[in-house]
């Protein structure tokens, strides 16, 4: 999990384009070796934030440190230790896979041999395929390989699964895990909840240019949603009213034989215990754990009020 040092530290970041305030106040810290997520709806300032981190844009205010370097001043040194997969970027259509890898490794020497990356990222059979002829998943694989060409300490992945089909998304997720497994810190930008929950060790939720919550997915969920739901089925005439006296239970709905028990704490264990005591052993006893998506919706509709974002 988290390594020893701090990879990225952003505090009080602010960036304005003309009259539009893209980033109002963003602060977060990324530990070395973790996958850190910036989660938020489209247009919330996530991309601007990571562009400032990479020195592609100048922040109007705030401090950024990338492994101790300031991207505003040590721009070229920062770009050398940060690998990147950018949103809305591409390569020339007629550029072939092997040519792209050879070009990028010639320009940023110091990384692994490009042929090794070609094999490692499953691109060997596409080595002579032009960029324009690659599938979306293959393009992403090439982008990840290119991001690693200079053996970076940090990799920024911006909306890497947008536009990919479900199978290709799974493959892309495995790629992110593989990047971290080789010891590289990952800063992931996404608007997909399942992706953030599946991949990120910790994350920051950004809405309208402001961080409104921070923590692990589990922390975010438990800070927002205390209610769990346990459900099971019993023969229709069974009396289950005794469940409302179980500690932590806040309500019981029984419709026909389908029972839903609302409450907090270790609800499943307590309900199961009470049921077994009464000689009831339903074989479909399950608990609905709230997902990050539920927490996100609670977060964004409560305080700031999010708009848009699929």
């Amino acid at each position, binding site marked *: 999990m988290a390594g020893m040092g701090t990879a990225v530290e952003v505090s009080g970041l602010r960036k304005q384009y003309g009259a539009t305030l893209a980033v109002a106040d963003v602060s977060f810290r990324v530990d070395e070796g973790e996958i850190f997520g910036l989660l938020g709806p489209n247009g919330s300032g996530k991309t601007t934030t990571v562009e400032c981190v*990479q020195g*592609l*844009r*100048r922040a109007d205010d705030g401090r950024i440190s990338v492994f101790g370097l300031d991207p505003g001043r040590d721009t*070229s040194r920062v*770009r*050398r230790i940060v690998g*990147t997969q*950018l949103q*809305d*970027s*591409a*390569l*020339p*259509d*007629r*550029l072939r896979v092997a*040519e792209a890898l*050879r*070009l*990028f490794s*010639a*320009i*940023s*020497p110091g990384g692994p041999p490009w042929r090794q990356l070609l094999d490692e990222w499953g691109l060997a059979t596409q080595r002579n395929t032009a960029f324009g002829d690659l599938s979306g998943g293959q393009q992403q694989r090439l982008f990840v390989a*290119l991001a690693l*060409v*200079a053996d970076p300490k940090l990799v920024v992945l911006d909306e890497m699964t947008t536009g990919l089909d479900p199978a290709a998304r799974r493959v892309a997720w495995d790629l992110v895990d593989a990047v971290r497994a080789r010891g590289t810190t990952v800063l992931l930008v996404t608007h997909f909840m399942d992706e953030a929950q599946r991949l990120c060790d910790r994350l920051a939720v950004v809405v309208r240019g402001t961080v409104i919550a921070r923590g692990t997915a589990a922390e975010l969920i438990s800070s927002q949603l205390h209610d769990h739901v346990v459900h099971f089925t019993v023969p229709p005439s069974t009396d289950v009213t005794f469940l409302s006296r179980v500690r932590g239970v806040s309500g019981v709905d029984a419709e026909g034989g389908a029972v839903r028990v609302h409450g907090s704490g270790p609800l499943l264990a307590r309900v199961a215990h009470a049921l077994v005591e009464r000689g009831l052993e339903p074989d479909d006893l399950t608990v609905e754990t709230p997902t990050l998506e539920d927490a996100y919706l609670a977060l964004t509709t409560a305080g700031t009020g999010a708009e848009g974002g699929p």
Partner: protein
Amino acid sequence: MRALRAMTWVELKLFAREPVTVLFLLVLPLVILYVLNGVFGSQPDPTVWEGQPPVDFYTPSYVALTAATAGILSLPVHLAGYREQGVLRRFRASAIRPATLIGAHMVVAGALATAGALLLTVVSWIGYDVALPEDWLGVLLAYLVVILAFTALGGLLGLAMPTARAAQGLGVLLFFVFMMLGGAGPPKEALPTSLQHVADVVPVTHAGAMLRHPWLYSDWDVGATAVMLLILVGSVALTAWRLRHEEAR
């Protein structure tokens, strides 16, 4: 330097995979040579073309036009397309400086234009018996300034144009103005006075003159040289300013 070399090699291959661009730069000058020779014949006319045989007068102008076409048409379309597709962003994030990319494009466009110019001169010599340069070194030096100036201008246009389509529109417009009024079309003396004034500010007019003087007279057109150097220095300065400005967004 290592980056520029790698980038240039890749860009050269990419250019070669676009047969239409290559064809345009290599074949179009020959078509113009063929057509205009058919129109003007081979007899010198004391009232136009500085009293020279048409092919002797025109060949340096065609060379200038080829250099201009590579610079203001094919280079900006390519570069603006890179911006449009996000290629520029991708390269910038990987520590490839835009100046390196523009430099690579200039080298490639320059190489292609030079191939076109050589082909044109050889065909003009074999087919139409054009006078070979009086002062080879002078012509080479003049050509170097001309190609640098036009490709630098192209780099600036490519940076300033938001899309490939816009760059194409502007490039084609400039191409026709350059061809018709830059001394590669009707003789300047045949133009109405107002258009003659326009011809005086068209860069190809000066590029043609700069090449023609060492080619035919073994001398040097100082005014034309000044104009071409001004285009070169101005384009480089504006490009540098624009890149600095973009970097600080």
